[in-house]
């Protein structure tokens, strides 16, 4: 296709015309200048703008806090009902453990862990900030004070001074103060519960200690700019204007939290089948939208052989982020123990997923074992489980896209490895997609080729040579054997092939060789092998990691473009941090624990590669937390 310069202009102008100007916003903003309101509010950029500019949202998936977010685009329509979301959700663990409450401020996630305290999670790590345990957490507008309740007492933790202050404590053991929310720096909302009675809502002045009764209910949440509260009473959500006490019903549900923008409330709502989901309601227009899915699953087999069902997940504590464009929620699999609660993030935007986005998110979901979400991206999802155990996915890469006979396709490679064993599989597939109201769904997946690199003998033992099989050509060739490796590197040591990886686009192998002599210390050789030139190169000879000798390699994976290797070592001191990234282009070696200045790392291991980033897990204080390292 040959595009002339005139056509370039035409195309640019055409695409300009596709950017729809929000005329309601234009009108409201104009009115502010007509009234001179704009000048008065100039210091309150975010809030006053959003008061006028009620944006509508739809939900697109991005991956948790740890991932750079994509550009988000709320839609022109403002109704929550117009959100197009259910098949665009993605979840990812950011923490595991019995999580009691969460809150976000400026990309820092505050997590209350039962019996441990409140932690802050950001790119520096996962750090305990107070040992006080919280039921619910709320950050003030500046993000320097945490308001929370603990065992019936309202407390405030000052992040600047590190001090925790008791704000309100009951004199009676039967009365508990809970669920506080900020109104302003001097006033909070709270719920007072007395055993056997309905809970009451109060405004509480921190200076005068005066409580003003606001009615009966739970979970009060303040609506900025409207001088109103949202609360729950008998599984119904209401707004109540504080000035005139006018009330209106929002929806059925509980655990509401109003977005900092003041436009939306997120809450939990039970479906007729008993499954609870996260919803969003539009406070001004009264429309609602479900944003999670929660399928039913078999619970137990009864004597009469009838299946009892239960929801797969239990959601709790949905909260907004500072920008009102993400919701964090605690999610637990009903069949897991309470320690396996996960904190999830759902990003909200109008972005329609492209074909590439859809495949990317499908593969992410596959790797992060989110079957539910992965299946939602398929036109005809299978009944069985999609995700893997071993060999398990260690990365993916989109390799191309196009259109054939009017149908879009995306080509991608999925990489799988076997823990601590010399096995690596690359599967290249074409994903055919059909347009869907929210973007695309995957109609079918056609495997195009597959490469398997192993050092196994036919008996399944680890052998002396590395073999590469290609499915399409049915070719199986022995690339090299241990004796081909430079004797200078091996010395008099006895080695076996350990984890290895293959990069099809460069026709290169990446190898780890484990020294296994019984009489000497173990060590690990890391090598590359260029198949086209039949040449090896030494990456590293690892005799110790962080002072711990006798390293054993448990995993070696390669960044899909061969930019870096991630190597996990098991050490003599089993609690030692152990993942090392080798940046191959600049010969840089990065010990990942050194990236986490705020975290006491007890264990770490690499997870998967995506677009130049290594996602890895860290165990710290009983939590498993995900971080990423981006290769420069």
């Amino acid at each position, binding site marked *: 296709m040959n*595009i002339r310069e005139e056509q370039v202009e035409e195309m640019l*102008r055409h695409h*300009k015309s*596709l950017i729809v100007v929000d005329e309601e916003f234009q009108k409201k903003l104009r009115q502010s*200048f007509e009234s001179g309101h704009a000048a008065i509010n100039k210091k309150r950029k975010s809030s006053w703008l959003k008061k006028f500019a009620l944006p509508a949202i739809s939900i697109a998936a991005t991956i948790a806090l740890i991932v750079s977010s994509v*550009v988000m685009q709320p839609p022109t329509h403002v109704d929550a009902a117009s959100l197009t979301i259910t098949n665009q959700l993605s979840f990812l663990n950011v923490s595991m453990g019995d999580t009691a409450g969460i809150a976000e401020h400026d990309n820092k996630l505050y997590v209350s862990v039962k019996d441990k305290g409140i932690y802050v999670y950001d790119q520096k790590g996962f750090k305990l900030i107070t040992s006080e345990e919280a039921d619910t957490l709320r950050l003030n507008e500046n993000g320097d004070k945490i308001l929370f309740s603990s065992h019936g007492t309202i407390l405030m933790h000052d992040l600047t001074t590190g001090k925790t202050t008791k704000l309100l404590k009951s004199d009676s053991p039967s009365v508990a103060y809970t669920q506080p929310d900020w109104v302003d720096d001097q006033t909070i909302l709270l719920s007072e519960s007395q055993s056997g009675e309905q809970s009451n809502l109060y405004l509480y002045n921190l200076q005068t200690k005066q409580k003003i009764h606001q009615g009966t209910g739970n979970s009060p949440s303040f609506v900025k700019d409207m001088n109103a509260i949202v609360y729950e009473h008998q599984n119904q959500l209401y707004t109540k204007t504080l000035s005139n006490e006018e009330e209106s019903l929002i929806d059925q549900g509980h655990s509401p939290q109003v977005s900092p923008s003041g436009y939306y409330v997120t809450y939990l709502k039970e479906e007729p089948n008993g499954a609870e989901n996260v919803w969003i309601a539009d406070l001004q227009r009264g429309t609602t939208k479900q944003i999670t899915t929660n399928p039913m699953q078999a619970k137990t087999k009864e004597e009469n052989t009838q299946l009892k069902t239960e929801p797969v997940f239990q959601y709790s504590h949905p909260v907004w982020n500072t920008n009102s464009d993400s919701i964090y929620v605690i999610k637990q699999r009903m069949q897991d123990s309470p320690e396996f609660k996960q904190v999830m993030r759902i990003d909200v935007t109008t972005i329609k997923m492209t074909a590439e986005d859809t495949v990317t998110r499908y593969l992410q979901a596959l790797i992060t074992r989110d079957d539910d979400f992965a299946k939602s991206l398929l036109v005809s999802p299978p009944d069985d489980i999609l995700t893997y155990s071993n060999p398990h996915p260690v990365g993916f890469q989109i390799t191309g896209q196009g259109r054939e006979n009017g149908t*879009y396709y995306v080509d991608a490679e999925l990489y799988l490895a076997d823990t601590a064993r010399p096995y690596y599989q690359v599967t290249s597939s074409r994903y055919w997609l059909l*347009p869907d109201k929210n973007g695309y769904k995957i109609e079918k997946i056609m495997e195009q080729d597959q490469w398997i690199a192993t050092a196994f003998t036919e008996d399944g033992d680890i052998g002396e040579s590395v073999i590469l099989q290609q499915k399409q050509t049915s070719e199986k060739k022995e690339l090299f054997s241990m004796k081909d490796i430079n004797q200078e590197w091996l010395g008099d040591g006895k080695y076996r092939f350990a984890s290895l990886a293959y990069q099809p686009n460069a026709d290169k192998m990446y190898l780890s060789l484990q020294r296994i002599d019984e009489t000497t210390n173990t060590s690990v050789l890391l090598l590359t092998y260029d198949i086209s030139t039949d040449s090896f190169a030494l990456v590293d000879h690892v005799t110790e990691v962080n002072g711990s000798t006798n390293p054993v390699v448990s995993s070696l994976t390669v960044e899909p473009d061969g930019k870096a290797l991630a190597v996990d070592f098991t050490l003599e001191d089993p609690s030692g941090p152990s993942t090392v990234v080798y940046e191959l282009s600049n010969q840089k070696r990065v010990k990942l624990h050194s990236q986490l200045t705020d975290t006491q790392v007890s264990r770490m291991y690499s997870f998967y590669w995506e677009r130049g980033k290594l996602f890895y897990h860290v165990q710290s204080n009983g939590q498993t937390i995900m971080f990423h390292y981006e290769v420069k």
Partner: protein
Amino acid sequence: MKDKFLDIYDQYFHDVYRYVFVKTGSRWDTEDLVSEIFRKAYEKFDGLRSEVNRKAWLMTISHNTVIDFYRAKKPVSVGDGLELMLPPYIEVDSLQQQEERICIEKSLNYLDSLDAEIIMLRYFSEMKCKEVGEVLGMSEANVRTKTSRIKKKLSILLSKCLGEQ
């Protein structure tokens, strides 16, 4: 003063809005920034000399406000602040339009920051070469020559991209 300001508001709102949107890709950020831009303009409008080109003046405020926004958002240099991902568009119906959109995004992202800025001001904010020059501190002739070169570059990039689709 108010009426004159509102005239400018009505006349250029769409140009400012689309410029900011194409730079941020986020409607929320766009609305925040557009409000900020017009607030700044409102405050400065009184002292504006009569000979100043209104549109170039307003777009200079827009240009600087977006740069400030990205400076505050992440630690990048000023030049980096211009290299922004283009947004998804809203009303994309046909597959052909989708292909074109993807290719335009890719091609614009391929341009260096100044070239992309020139194209955004020229075609998404409908500015004349002279006005673009005033915003970016370049001569009209320079903007004209550069625009022509960038269009050539874009025609190659778009041809290649659409040919591959």
